């Protein structure tokens, strides 16, 4: 068994390629989706029922479709209606759409618990629109929702493994490739599992560190 591990590990460049692909896919998803989610949270909190309903319909529809199915839709269905995407583009779009909906819902939850005096305080000092969001409301939402956003980020990492089915060479894809070359599936997948474990725990650790900072910056 030890020598099986040793054999699997001879393919470490493939593991690393997969790991790096997983990391950059998830990291760019986290950054871009969080920004998009901030703006999607606005219509979710709108006073207008029509605006709120449209936003809610989008968020709820995306959240009630399995991630894998959404990836299939982007990769197989969009070309059928004339939109041809590379597998990478399809993968990124799937990750972004799916997680923007989740992050937006998390931020909306935090927003609905934000004391209305905070927004009003901002308005009383002349903040409106984007600047109200950027300097007064947004930071408080991220501080309040930090741990929940962290959990969702870990979910992003795990979901990204599904992207192997649309030929994205991320970590699970690469592990599968290695085991099919070397015929040591058990050891290969254990190694891949450990890499996921380390990645997710690093995120967890980072979130906990940020949480310590966040605690001093909350109202209570």
């Amino acid at each position, binding site marked *: 068994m030890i020598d099986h591990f040793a054999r699997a590990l001879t393919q470490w460049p493939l593991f690393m390629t997969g790991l790096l692909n997983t990391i950059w896919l998830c990291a760019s998803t986290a950054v871009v989706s969080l920004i998009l989610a901030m703006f999607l949270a606005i219509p979710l909190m709108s006073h207008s029922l029509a605006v709120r309903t449209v936003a809610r319909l989008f968020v709820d529809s995306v959240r009630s479709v399995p991630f894998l199915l959404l990836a299939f839709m982007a990769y197989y269905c969009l070309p059928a209606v004339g939109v041809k995407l590379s597998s990478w583009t399809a993968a990124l779009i799937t990750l972004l759409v799916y997680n923007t909906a989740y992050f937006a819902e998390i931020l909306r939850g935090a927003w609905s618990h934000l004391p209305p*005096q*905070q927004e*009003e*305080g*901002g*308005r*009383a*000092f*002349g*903040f*409106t*629109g984007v*600047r109200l969001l950027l*300097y*007064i409301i947004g*930071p*408080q939402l991220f*501080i309040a929702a930090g741990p929940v956003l962290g959990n969702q980020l870990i979910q992003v990492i795990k979901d990204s493994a599904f992207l192997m089915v649309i030929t994205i060479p991320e970590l699970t894809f690469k592990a599968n490739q290695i085991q099919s070359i070397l015929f040591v599936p058990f050891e290969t997948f254990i190694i891949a599992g450990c890499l996921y474990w380390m990645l997710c725990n690093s995120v967890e650790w980072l979130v906990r560190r940020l949480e310590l900072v966040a605690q*001093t*910056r*909350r*109202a*209570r």
Partner: protein
Amino acid sequence: MQVRGLVKSFGALRVLDDVSLTVDAGETVCILGPSGSGKSTLLRCINLLETPQSGEIYLRGERVGFREEGPNGQVRMSEREMAHIRTRIGMVFQQFNLWPHLTALGNITVTPIRILKRPKHEVEAEALALLEKVGLVDKRNEYPIRLSGGQQQRVAIARALAMRPEVLLFDEPTSSLDPELVGEVLSVIRGLADEGRTMAVVTHELAFAREAADHVVFMDAGKVVETGLPDEFFGSPKTSRARQFLERYR
């Protein structure tokens, strides 16, 4: 600053009923009255946080909240225009409403830097001077959660002053403070009154009103019942409602 014939109803409840008020430049006006008499709503209307059904508000002779357009029409100002007016009015809230994600210094500097677009180094120097003035310069890097209520309210006053406002509005600034913390906040406000700032202070602190106010306005049930000089009002109130109110608080 002048308010003329302000009317504000929430549903069937008439919270402000034809309220008029003048605060001359350099003057401190204390607004007194029982809870629910419309004092806070009046300040919120002046700061354009509430839209009155009718009435006019003037800041340095300039109509705010509405623009006169056409022969008989008046149009509510846009959000942007109202935001600009609000930067000219400093507001201090009952619940302080400091922004918890910013330090004491950050709370004071964020608006001048981001909204008034003034240079950062200049704003920070001024903010430190303001913190000095409210006696909290050593707390400049603390977040609000680490400050007592009295300290938070003093930071909130410094935050309002940093806007270089034309008028300062105080909405029951000491009502949510522990009794032993009231004094430190009142002495700061008193200092501002003595400097000749233009201020409207809604308060239940009658002793403070008597000492600091140039004029006293007494409100009850959405109406201005009595106005006068503090000594006249507290010494010999003209209306029975004011007499009752003062007796209850003595």
